[in-house]
């Protein structure tokens, strides 16, 4: 549905993005994750044909950004970083205007507007002037605007920025429900947001794509090793002997546990040894209070990638 190839964009001398390449499948929700100034907005503005790239190719909904921008614009919905609202218009007036410029014929406009009012939860404010709405409602009006032409592709630039936690949850739920019918690209610098809403992530840093995968795969990929955390009671040296008896142990770290007479041991191995480890420890008469795999969060991955460290 979206193919991006080697997009590069300069602002004057400054390079904002460099050879950005990724694909998005139909019905997918893709997270464009990166810190501030990574180039997320730049990428999205190119895909929405708000401006051309300096070089590179992209196809959105099957149309080329260079040669068929009008066809793309007919098929997308875009929520920019700042929702593009006219503060002196009423919500319905605003949506009616958007419907007109998106070319929705007048006999379908009314129902399209009531649909998005429903979807975005705007019923209680339809007759209010946009400028008088809270930040959360403004964001919803922005989202309603983007959904109005029932677009094949939705591009949402940091849709939850500046909202309070309850509003954030609501908007995320809304977005999650949009996948399937719509192909969605959503940008964010908030990691949990991607884990919660996106099927796939493109991580972008200083204008370059540094990783691209599902949130789960990215986590797995980072795990060149398995980390197991144990809480053991009994003889510490006996426990360590059991652990070191496994061939592929890379690293062992022992700390005293909060409970007296127990130790917390963190073992890093090449493969998952949890079940054998449990058996052996119990056979040696040691008490096993806890045994779990330590997962890497997307946060870890993000830090690894963006600080250019070698993945463990």
């Amino acid at each position, binding site marked *: 549905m979206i193919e991006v190839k080697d997009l590069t964009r300069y602002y004057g001398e400054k390079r904002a993005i460099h050879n950005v390449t990724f694909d998005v499948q139909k019905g997918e929700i893709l997270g464009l994750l990166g810190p501030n100034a990574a180039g997320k907005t730049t990428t999205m503005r190119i895909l929405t044909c708000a*401006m051309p790239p300096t070089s590179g190719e992209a196809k959105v909904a099957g149309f080329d950004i260079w040669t068929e921008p009008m066809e793309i614009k*007919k098929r997308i919905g875009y929520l920019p970083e700042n929702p593009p609202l006219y503060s002196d*218009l009423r919500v319905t007036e605003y949506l009616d205007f958007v419907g007109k410029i998106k070319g929705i014929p007048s006999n379908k406009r009314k129902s399209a507007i009531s649909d998005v009012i429903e979807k975005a939860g705007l019923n209680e404010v339809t007759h209010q002037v946009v400028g008088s709405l809270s930040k959360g409602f403004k964001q919803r009006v922005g989202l309603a605007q983007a959904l109005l032409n029932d677009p094949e592709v939705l591009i949402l630039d940091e849709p939850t920025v500046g909202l309070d936690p309850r509003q954030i949850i609501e908007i995320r739920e809304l977005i999650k429900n949009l996948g399937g019918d719509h192909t969605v690209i959503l940008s964010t610098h908030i990691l949990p947001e991607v884990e919660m809403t996106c099927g796939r992530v493109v991580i972008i840093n200083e204008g370059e794509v540094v990783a691209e995968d599902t949130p789960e795969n990215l986590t797995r990929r980072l795990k060149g090793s398995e980390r197991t955390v144990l809480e053991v009671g009994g003889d510490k040296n006996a426990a360590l002997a059991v652990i070191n008896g496994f061939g592929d142990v890379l690293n062992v770290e022992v700390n005293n546990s909060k409970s007296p007479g127990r130790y917390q041991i963190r073992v890093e191995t090449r493969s998952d040894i949890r079940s054998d480890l449990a058996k052996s420890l119990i056979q040696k008469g040691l008490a096993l209070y806890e045994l779990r795999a330590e997962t890497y969060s997307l946060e870890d991955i993000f830090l690894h990638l963006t600080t250019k460290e070698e993945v463990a």
Partner: protein
Amino acid sequence: MSKTLAIFQKEMKHFFYSPIAYIVIAAFTIIAGIFFYLYLSSFVEAAFMDMIRSQQYRMPPQKFNVNLQLIRPYFWNTALISLFVLPLVTMRLYSEEKKSKTVELLYTSPLTVSQIVLGKFFAGVVFYIVMLVPTMFFMGLLFAYGNPELGPVLSGYLGLILLGSAFISGGLFISSLTENQIIAAIGGFGLALVLWIIGWAANYSGPGLASVLNYLSIINHFEDFAQGVIDTKHVFYYLLFSTFGIYLTMKSVESTRWRAS
């Protein structure tokens, strides 16, 4: 076409939802009214004095022509006032959208640059026509109490609309260059001043230069309209001016999109 109309309607709403529109209309009417009153009273006074004189000296009274001696200078003044009020109309036409980032909506919707620019231009023109409506009351007074010719009044209004359109295209261009309405307004005043000075300088310069300045002067082309003459040469000038202003606005929009901000 329907999209141009959508932009046009939206702009009209911006005008009339804002108090500035009413202030501008009121100020324009009052200033035009003051000039009308001054011309009218000096006209009446002159006619009155002449009547007394003719009775004293038993001479036939002079012919006083309301079209030549009142309506013509009044229109000429209204044209000049328009130049200096219209920047307040054009200042926000584009700047406001740049500032509030609503240009992003326009540029990512299936709209052409010409639909955007023409919608805004025509909104400015129609707003100016609305501004002119209260001044028709002054003309109405003349028709109620006197016997002026209708032709010069109609051609005067046609001339005002053409001159206003030309100026609005220039003001729109200036507004498209900045996201700051105040700067757009100052630029508009600057443009009005330059256009006025050109016409004024034409009256005081040598014959060679004068013909060039006269041609460039937005205000000197108005003179025939104020006298009831519709010369296609002047109509063409105003249409050309408007087209050029619209063209520059479109180029400015396209180039800022290329540079992007």
